[in-house]
């Protein structure tokens, strides 16, 4: 049954034997709900301009979560230090804007490349070891970078942060020149656009042979090796890509807010993005977006009632979510059934 992976459209619905190629590629076609959802997302900054700052933050978190989804949902790597790449992209872009040139797009490229480089360098650590060692190493890298940023405070501003990152206007060929305004409207569109492009890119990757082999790796690494595919190379490629995207999110953050602080390397960043991804569901790209929106909205809503005890409720939510099982969260009637695990 050796067939090409690319099957003609429409073959997926044909009766009879399942075509593995079509089965695997079927999700790669754009569904109506996906288009509708993206239209709705783009409409928000247009019609709800007063929330532009929040939209900007959500877009950045969504991009960050998307990059984590690549390694967590698709490759099965548990990382508690993804903020390392976020931070490197952030400081890279900030220092570039301050000392070299303040163009936002070039700065974005610089931030992304720097963090992708870091991802490449640290990827050998991810390939070896157990879940626990991977967890420790990823956390360790983030902590080391936090300390480094703190020590080299002549360069990074240390605990006070790097201030005065002023970006020049965003120049998009054929469309126009946009200055970053106080109301964050331009910022929100900028971040949303980068998020959209990243989403399209990841969609392509996930539905390519590389992406599908990553899922196979997540599900059963030994078997993948037995088939003769290289685990190492794939992991390195995916980890580097994820690192680059996380760096892009970090670069967006400093470009749209005008400063960089040590907070970008903090553990709570890694934990928050993991949380957002889990809320949205790992393993389908929309999880990053849904989770980021839900997380930020929930945070805002709960904080206005009980400013101090957001951590308690999110903790409780996590515990319950894990106990009932992530897939069952959205089907409350199955919580009390002793179904199969």
């Amino acid at each position: 049954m050796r067939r090409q992976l690319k099957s003609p459209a429409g073959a997926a619905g044909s009766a009879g034997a399942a075509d593995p190629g079509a089965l695997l590629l079927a999700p790669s076609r754009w569904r109506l709900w996906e288009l509708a959802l993206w239209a709705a997302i783009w409409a928000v900054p247009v019609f709800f301009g007063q929330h532009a700052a929040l939209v900007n933050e959500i877009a950045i978190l969504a991009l960050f979560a998307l990059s984590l989804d690549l390694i967590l949902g698709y490759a099965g790597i548990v990382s508690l230090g993804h903020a390392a790449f976020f931070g490197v992209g952030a400081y890279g872009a900030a220092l570039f804007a301050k000392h070299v040139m303040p163009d936002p797009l070039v700065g974005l490229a610089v931030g992304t490349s720097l963090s992708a480089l870091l991802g490449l360098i640290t990827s050998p650590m991810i390939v070896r070891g157990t879940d626990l060692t991977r967890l420790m190493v990823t956390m360790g890298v983030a902590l080391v970078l936090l300390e480094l940023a703190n020590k080299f405070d002549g360069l990074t501003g240390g605990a006070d942060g790097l201030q005065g990152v002023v970006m020049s206007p965003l120049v998009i060929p054929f469309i126009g020149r946009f200055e970053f305004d106080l109301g964050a409207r331009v910022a929100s569109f900028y971040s949303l656009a980068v998020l959209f492009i990243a989403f399209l890119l990841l969609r392509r990757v996930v539905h390519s042979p590389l992406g599908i082999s990553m899922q196979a790796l997540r599900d059963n690494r030994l078997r993948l090796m037995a088939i003769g595919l290289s685990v190492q190379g794939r992991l390195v490629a995916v980890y580097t890509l994820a690192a680059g995207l996380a760096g892009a999110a970090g670069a967006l953050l400093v470009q749209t807010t005008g400063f960089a602080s040590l907070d970008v390397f903090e553990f709570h960043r890694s934990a928050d993005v993991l949380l957002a991804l889990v809320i949205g569901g790992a393993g389908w790209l929309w999880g990053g977006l849904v989770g980021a929106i839900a997380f930020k909205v929930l945070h805002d809503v709960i904080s206005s009632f009980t400013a101090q005890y957001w951590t308690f409720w999110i903790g409780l939510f996590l515990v319950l979510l894990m106990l009932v099982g992530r897939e069952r969260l959205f089907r409350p009637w199955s919580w009390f059934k002793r179904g199969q695990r």
Partner: protein
Amino acid sequence: MTHSTTTRRHHLATLAGLASAALVLAAGPARAEDTVKIGVILPMTGPSASTGRQIDAAIKLWMAQSGGKAGGKKVEVLIKDDAGVADTTRRLAQELVVNDKVVALAGFGLTPLALATAPIATQSKTPMVVMAAATSIITEASPYIVRTSFTLPQAATAIAEWAAKNKIKKVVTLVADYGPGNDAEKFFSSQFQLNGGTIADKLRTPLRGADFAPALQKVRDLTPDALFVFLPSGQGAQFMKQFAERGLDKAGIKLIATGDVTDDDQLNDMGDVALGVVNSHHYSAAHPSAANKKYVADFQAANKFRPNFMSVGGYDGMRVIFKALDATKGAGGDALLAAMKGQIFESPRGPVLIDAQTRDIVQDIYIRKVERVNGQLYNVEFDTLKAVKDPGKLK
């Protein structure tokens, strides 16, 4: 794929639900025409939560005492929590200015939080009252920033002068490694050396996860006459204990500090190890003025804890805003800023002036010693330096 179509649909339904809930909440109530709003951004959660708590209590006290009216209009105070994260502070400031149209911003528990918000104040021409952060350069970050807290150089130079005049020749400095700490170290050293003293070493501890054992060991090895310390409030107790435990007091090393280490909020719980520590600061709960006695009494009646120097920053900040609103009849912008500059009044801490040129606070700095009064520990003032301007601006 791990998710079936049904699960995805449920995800989307939830998302739609959440989005509409968010929009409903965002709509908010309509604004009355004769109300002015003040946006206060404080770290109510996170490591600086005690700062937020003190200032929040002080603001509530002020609102209760003043009746909540200024310049003929009702004043509404919106308190937001930034958890000490600078991005959040900036976003909240943006929302307060653009959506809620606040006439003034206030709060700012740490230096990076204030610095991050400065461009917003400048761009929107909104006066920004810094009630807690204490690094010198903050007021230079925007022409709209007014400070009612204090600056570390004010406290550090005061204690350096006292030390030089009191037979202390050789000092080791130990500060936390961040903006205010660097300020404290720099100004203490220069003032102390100006008066003929020597600095044997300058030690730094990280802001987070500070471990004093190695640093204290170094101090012990250097045998100075005194150890000058600056630490953010919250680390003081831990430090004091280790100081005594390592036998430094018995080795004849005096402990001098800025008042952050003997913060009124925690002083009483520190126990006898804190007795005798000479420090300099702008506010003590034991300050013997009628205004302060009333302030402390009212504050403690409403809360279970004592007011500390952070709370006076908040209390006086509110006064500055209210008096300025009275002068401008509720208007904001440049007029409000102008009305804030040059204000001179009696605060629970003592006499206070908001300098018209630097927009920074000019106040008395007291030299105090920790003593037991009526069974509780207090910073008892025994010397005063009058009308200290921020030395950081004079350089």
